[in-house]
């Protein structure tokens, strides 16, 4: 009989979300390969809550997941470097980063924890505000912002903003009711939560993005070890197909973001290399510093990531 595997993620299923698409591609490709493996996809957190997925994979109760790695940073603090401001500038840079020493270190930690990477994927994001465009660090001063993750919060606080932590699903109401002046999240969320109805300016990812997040397709090592070589090859091949699809789709996602906001009459701006460098300077004094001090091997990780041209 076929081996039946479970794949889970938190995004809507069958509605064109890129991460759902990646998992579906892997399902199609692996089943097409005819190696006796079928994949059952559980989209929209219908099996596990987003942050439970890591533990479930480590324990072998979940086989495959599209998982934002930072969600496991409470267990492996090094993972917060995959949601660190300014380390990844654009999609081509992200592609080069995948083969760097930095990612080799991260993948070793993933592997040691009992999880295998099937496909790499980096999602871009930006800022939006209803007060003023966020380009220079000074622009953020005095604004109440929602940031994605502690590293961004630390950097924004260092730039003089105040932080209101909330899930991305609450950004819309936050802006509407004045609890927030602006927010920082992924391109996908900016579009799907229709935040363009509430803001006056969008800072698109463009060539000098501050916000990138690593959201790979992962597999439980317990499951991996149960597969024979043919099945492993089928998974890796499928993973490559998904990764290639993703690379184009992610750029398309950013284009969709720009189109949606321009279409809604929102001003769209992008950071220059100098503005990006100012933010990185602030990050070095806040989030990077913090990360280097608190996380074993943190300093080296940042250095290795910054070394990637």
């Amino acid at each position, binding site marked *: 009989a076929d081996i039946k595997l479970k794949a889970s993620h938190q995004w809507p299923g069958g509605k064109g979300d890129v991460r759902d698409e990646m998992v579906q591609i892997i399902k199609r490709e692996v089943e097409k390969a005819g190696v006796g493996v079928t994949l059952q996809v559980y989209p929209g957190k219908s099996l596990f809550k987003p942050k439970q997925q890591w533990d479930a994979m480590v*324990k072998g109760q979940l086989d495959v997941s599209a998982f934002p790695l930072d969600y496991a940073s409470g267990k492996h603090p090094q993972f917060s470097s995959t949601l660190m401001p300014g380390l990844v500038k654009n999609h081509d840079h992200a592609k080069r980063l995948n083969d760097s020493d930095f990612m080799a270190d991260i993948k070793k930690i993933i592997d040691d924890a009992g999880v295998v990477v099937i496909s790499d994927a980096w999602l871009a994001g930006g800022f939006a505000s209803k007060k003023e465009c966020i380009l220079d660090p000074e622009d953020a001063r005095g604004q109440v912002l929602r940031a994605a993750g502690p590293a961004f919060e630390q950097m924004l606080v260092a730039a003089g903003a105040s932080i209101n932590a909330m899930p991305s699903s609450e950004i819309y*109401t936050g802006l509407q009711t004045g609890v927030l002046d602006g927010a920082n999240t992924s391109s996908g969320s900016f579009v799907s939560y229709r935040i363009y109805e509430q803001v006056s300016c969008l800072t698109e990812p463009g060539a000098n993005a501050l916000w990138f997040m690593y959201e790979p397709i992962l597999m439980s090592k317990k499951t991996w070890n149960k597969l024979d070589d043919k099945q492993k090859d089928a998974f890796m091949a499928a993973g490559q197909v998904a990764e290639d699809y993703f690379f184009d789709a992610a750029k398309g996602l950013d284009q969709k973001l720009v189109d949606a906001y321009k279409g809604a009459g929102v001003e769209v701006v992008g950071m220059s290399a100098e503005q990006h460098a100012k933010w990185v300077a602030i990050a070095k004094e806040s989030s990077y510093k913090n990360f280097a001090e608190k996380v074993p091997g943190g300093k080296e990780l940042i250095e290795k990531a910054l070394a990637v041209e």
Partner: protein
Amino acid sequence: MSPLALGVLVAVVTIVILMSGTPVAFSLGIVAVGFLLIFDGMGALDVIPQIFYGGIDSFALLSIPMFIVMGSAIASSRAGSDLYEALDRWLYKVPGGLLVSNISACAIFAALSGSSPATCAAIGKMGIPEMRKRGYPAGLATGSIAAGGTLGILIPPSVTMIVYGIATETSIGRLFLAGLLPGLMLTALFTCWGLFVAWRGGYRFSDVSAHFTLKQRFEILPKVLPFLIIIAGILWVLYGGVATPSEAAGVGAVFCILVVAVIYRMWRPFAFWKIFKESMRESVMIMMIIAAAALFSYMMSSLFITQSLAIWIGELEVNRWVLMFCINIFLLVAGFFLPPVAVILMTAPTLVPIIEAAGFDPIWFAVVLTINMEIGLITPPVGLNLYVINGIAPDVRLPTILWGALPFMFCMVLGIIILCLVPEIALWLPRTMMQ
């Protein structure tokens, strides 16, 4: 075994274990664990504690104990009686006025409490003895309070709406707004029925000796005012967009405690302790069910029962109103046996995609679901409001209460029918107030 057959087995086993008198939370838990171990293997033990814990690991759930504290703070004082007396002084000349006062008091209190038993207790403590003293039959007195109390989960704030909002990722603010007009509609239906019975039974001026001067009528108003202010405050905080429901509920709880302390001079620490102790008991009971329901729905999803059920119903291609009728019957039956929170957590994640595919609005459905749950609150074997009435009027037998409450249940069914015909009653307010 096919997932659907497995689903039937799960249903049978769950019903049997529930019927044994095992607490609802632990029944759901043991069924979930049992099926996971048999059909998913012993490895499932590795994630069971995470999922149980994860069921209550949410900031949004905080609003449940907060709204319960709010209600029990007020219920512990004479506020319920004052509210009731104020209404009575204004309405005592109306035929069946006492009944109207009681139902209106329930509706107003419902706006201060997220739970139905609390509403029932707060108004019933004064209302039931008073009605019986003035010659209303025991069935009508207890039945009307049992039914009026159920408004607690329809008129915002509402514990069950919060649970529905979290389970289906629907805005809690919109859900609250959606419940308001249907709540008032049910209040009106209850009142009409009450007036009709009073007129037919001749309970017109059973207390002819009573007379309240205009002065007496006005001097009691200040006692009611603070509560109306709190209600207005919570509405403002929730819809003026000042804070999230959890934050609004926390502030509301503190305000209610302060109001009770100042107006009723309740300064003794013991009184406060009692408020929190009672709130703790009710919220622990609910939160345990929520945690166990998380395990239950994980089991249902992991064994692919939920998904197969949704696909199966989707492929039936029945008329959408036939579907809605069947869902209502199902909810009604589930409500007989389970407390509202358990029904919502076990069914909403499966039902909502189905009803959305059939073209119904999930917010409108929340209101229909809630009214079904209200009926369940006053039917045995698990009717939380019946326990409360039993505590207030131990000498009234269960069949008498049920008989008295039956017409009000018909009012609720009528309410559901009206909502099906005019969905705007539920949808107009959230649409206009929150775009």
